């Protein structure tokens, strides 16, 4: 069974790309369009890693990561943050919220998979 990856992004285009990239790389992607939706999906998933956008309606990435970390079974699940800004302060905020790493958008498929490898082995 291929590794489940939960990808959360409000942009359909980015979701489509994540879906494509992840499927082609042999992962089993699950897609959510914001933090709340992501949390809903998480109830039925045991993803090997979570990828999340920051700027999203309803519940943004920081809120989402924070909420995921409070769920016992996902306390150590790697979470990668998608960000268009490689600005250090954003990485810092994501890190403070409990993010494992980050992927700078627009992501290259290789880099995305590489980042996943860095956190899932």
């Amino acid at each position: 069974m291929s590794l489940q990856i939960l990808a959360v992004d409000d942009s359909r285009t980015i979701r489509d790309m994540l879906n494509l990239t992840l499927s082609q790389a042999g992962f089993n992607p699950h897609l959510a369009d914001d933090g709340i939706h992501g949390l809903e999906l998480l109830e039925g998933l045991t993803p090997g890693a979570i990828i999340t956008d920051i700027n999203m309606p309803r519940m943004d990435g920081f809120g989402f990561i924070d909420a995921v970390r409070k769920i016992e079974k996902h306390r150590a699940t790697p979470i990668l943050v998608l960000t268009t800004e490689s600005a250090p302060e954003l990485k810092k905020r994501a890190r403070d919220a409990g993010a494992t790493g980050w992927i700078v958008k627009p992501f290259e498929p290789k880099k995305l998979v590489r980042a996943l490898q860095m956190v899932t082995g």
Partner: protein
Amino acid sequence: MTDEVDPMIEIRASFFVECEELLESLQDGLQLMDDGQSDDETINVVFRAIHSIKGGAGAFGLEELVRFAHQFESVLDGVRSHTILVDRTDIAIFFQASDILADLVRAARDDEPADQEKVQSILDKLSVILGDNAQEEDEVDASDFQPMGIALDLGLPELSDNESVDTDTQHEPAITTDAISAPGNEKPEHFLEGFKIFFQPDSSLYETGNEPLHLLKLLREIGEVDVSCDTSNLKSLSELEEEKSYLAWTIYLATDEDEASVRDIFDFVADLCKLDISPISNSTLPPSNKTDDAPLSSELSIVPTASETVVPPAPPQISQNTADLPVRKSTVPTLPKTNTDNNKPSNKPRPTVRVDLERIDRLVNLVGELVINQAMISQSVTDADLPSNSAISAGLDEFMQLTRDIQDSVMMIRAQPVKSLFQRMSRIIRESSAMVGKSVCLKTDGENTEVDKTVIERLADPLTHMIRNAVDHGIEKEEDRLNADKPAEGIVTLMASHRSGRVIIEVSDDGAGINRERVLQIAMDKGLVAENSQLSDTEIDNLLFLPGFSTASEVSDLSGRGVGMDVVKSSIIALGGRVTIQSEPGQGTKFTISLPLTLAVLDGMVIEVAKQILVVPLNAIAETLTLTQESVLPLGPNNRVIKVRDVFVPLLDLGSELGFRAPLNNFDNAVVLLISQENGTQAALVVDAIQDQRQVVIKGLQNTFGRPSGVAAATILGDGKIALILDPIDIVSSAESAGNLAQNNLQLTG
């Protein structure tokens, strides 16, 4: 990796669809801001729309779009963080910027160049607003916007490699067999060139979901590694805390890669560990063999060989190792920072699926067939003369109801809110009012009214023209408005609603109203009406729809595009619609467009003329009457009129107009359909009999038939026969132009 059609092309197409939606929310948000509702969530919505467009554009390497969106986004970011305060002038610029953003999106989509001058001018305006906020964060990290490669060959080992790691250990002996060993300072004997890495995770590394083992594996991928693990701080099992860090690793890495690539592997954890990477060459250290003499407590068979779950424990006290190295304070995730909108339930868009329009059209067609089929069965049942309480009749009633429900539901699929159309119009208002130097705002109502997608698409041009007309001719100049005690800003209102099975769209302005004197004069000058004609107000207003009529005394840039209201009218009629006009001097003018809900089905009256079965669209029929010979009055040698409620209405024999028979002479008991024309006048069509009133599926006539005058389309009736669907207004107007008809209804006086 794939031989199929590049899925990126599909995603690209869907990106542009998404952009349209984002542009819509952008417009909505800006409108709210303009209305003074600049709360955080509104600004966030605007920001996110731009942000998402930028993100997607970056992925496809649409540099121009990225550049513009970035600038726009920076401004909104400033607004969001309250470092930029905006007034309505700025919001007006945001509206312009959103127009340009829309232009750029479409230019990118259609692979056409954008208007650089316009783009630059708005970019400049945005820079002014951005002002001092344009600091370093504005310097786009070029690497952020490298186009994503379209090719998706990841060039990586198959993922299954990850899963087989544990069985591959003979090739990579270091990690698994020697993971736990004494502090290793010995460089492996075969070591050539590479790095010595000291890696000691903080406890926080585990708290963020990072896992040293994965990093070690990645190191192994770029070279040969020799790993030794310092377990000296390890506690006994009972004392171990799951997420505390107790271990440290020393790794010798033989690789051709440079230091940056090695550091890259530790990118996510650089702030969560003690990390020392130093290049070494062959001469740096003496070769040594792996050591097996590490003090190993027997319980500690928790060698991190299993890839996912084991969190290597490590002692909390790492003092002896950290004496000379600054230990980063572990960043405990103390900040449960949630967005302000975190707890705010918002209306989440309902889940949707995207479906190829072709499939829907196929479904629409099939349902059309179903409707015909159902009608045929009904017909057979009727013909079979079964008792009305028979099971088959009851079943048939239900079948009819279901068919109609299915049909309605299918038509709903094609329906879209007119909102997107209205939004396009707000841009027309902005641009056209700027062009003629008037201040005009657009008010909309009923923008969630749903209309067939094709209707929406085909309404854009006529509406654009009407809006431009309203701005150009309807709304007065500012000083005239002030003199008339009106607010300086003119209002154009777009309103949509459903009314008795049709869609009503109103375009109104609060301008001066139609100058009827002038309209009449122009019509006379152009020979459109006879000199000294006495026309009613409605008739004068309707002159605007005549071909070749233009009131603009000087042809302005705006409405002088060679398109008159006659074209507007004919495009609306082509949609099965009608347009009427109402005007009140000093109060404004209102155009009302009435459209069928769908283009696929119509309610028709089935009639018989000269033994032919025909269908007349119900919406064209004002009423039906039965004549007596006395009620028909001759008007000249060929024309006849009938009197309907004190108005003389021209009478036409449908059979002869269609060339089915010679003109009738006896009208006793003749049935007539009273047809309402768009200009409000009426005409009466004589038919032989009215058979039925029912919904029919419109089947287009193929081009081989040309477009026979008076015929709109065809349909298949319940008995399987084909019937033509007439265009009665066309019949009346061609009769008019052939001189077979009294031109205007004459009002009886007294």
